[in-house]
């Protein structure tokens, strides 16, 4: 029986096939999955902010895009994946309050840009993504098929 592992805000988890990884209620946060098809291994992070230099105290590396990506790569390689085999899928990075005065304007976009840049540096291809917009998403990654299911409150579901 496949187990569904929940990835909380600013956290990360590793899953082996056939288990699934799930992250609920992504707003401007981004759910990023790196995976290796050959060994059926995947790791998901629920990233909140782009840059760890913003932090004013100690933090979990999954909270910031620039510490989460290297962390996910390390985690997967320690469990037998090779860097050349890694692929990525991601969703989230919405702008939830476009009209409100806000500490972090366009934070969703900045999260996405930072993740893209970093993945590019590692030469990890982004196979599919569903990012931006103005609505929250819940995502679930199936390690067996490498499919990412995306659910929204008002515009249904899709698989990427």
């Amino acid at each position, binding site marked *: 029986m496949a187990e569904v592992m*929940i990835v*909380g*805000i*600013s*956290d990360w988890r590793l899953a082996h096939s056939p288990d699934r990884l799930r992250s*609920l*209620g*992504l*707003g*401007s*946060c981004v759910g990023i999955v790196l995976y290796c098809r050959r060994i059926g291994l995947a790791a998901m992070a*629920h990233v*909140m*902010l782009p840059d760890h230099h*913003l*932090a*004013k*105290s*100690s*933090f*979990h590396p999954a*909270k910031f895009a620039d510490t989460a990506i290297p962390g996910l790569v390390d985690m997967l390689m320690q469990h037998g994946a090779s860097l050349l085999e890694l692929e990525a899928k991601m969703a989230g990075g*919405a702008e*939830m*309050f476009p*009209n*409100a*005065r*806000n*500490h*972090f304007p366009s*934070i969703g976009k900045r999260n996405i840009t930072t993740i893209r840049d970093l993945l590019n540096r590692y030469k990890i291809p982004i196979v599919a993504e569903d990012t931006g917009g103005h*609505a*929250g*998403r*819940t995502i679930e990654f199936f390690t067996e098929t490498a499919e990412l299911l995306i*659910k*929204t*409150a*008002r515009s249904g579901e899709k698989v990427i």
Partner: protein
Amino acid sequence: MDSLFLLNEGELDLLKEIANIGAGHAASALSQLIGQVVEMKVPSVKVSRFSDWLSDHEAEMTVACAYIHMSGDLNGHFYLSFPLEETRQLLKAMLASRDVNMEALGFPSLETSAFGEVGNILAGSYLASLSDFTHLNIQTSPPTVLVDMAGAILGEGLLDLSLYGEEVLVIDCELTNLAESGPIRSTFTFLPLAEDLAKLLALLGVQDG
């Protein structure tokens, strides 16, 4: 305040008491607004890690929410959320009409304005009583109304709070009407910035240990 987990029982009780008074004012405001008796539960004040704050069920539930940003002496986030199906009852009671278009909620419409006004009035009465009590100057933004997953909406409030630590102080209170037409449950969620929380406690005569 290095960690919110260092708050002691006495401090949490005090915060709960303040929340109680504020929520009482908000409950009477809601009661006047919809012309029905409104009951409130004792507020809960809890400190939790971001990753544990919302249960899976809560995070994925679709809610109608009015979000208000607080600034001035007390910075933080204030959310008033209703389960989507109960929002219709609320709007019916407010607009005295049978045709409430739920699809319009969150987009420029009468429904959105009315709902935003509920947020304004409830947040206003809650924060005014807090301000009276502490003499802190608290300013509120106009409400932003949206319909979405609770986790996606509430999570936005964690962005700035998250820079200071891994945990959040959440003050929640539930209000329920007693009408026969079915319940309208609403939840307040108040997320103060940790730095300002220390200021608040000091004002109330509690020394940060």
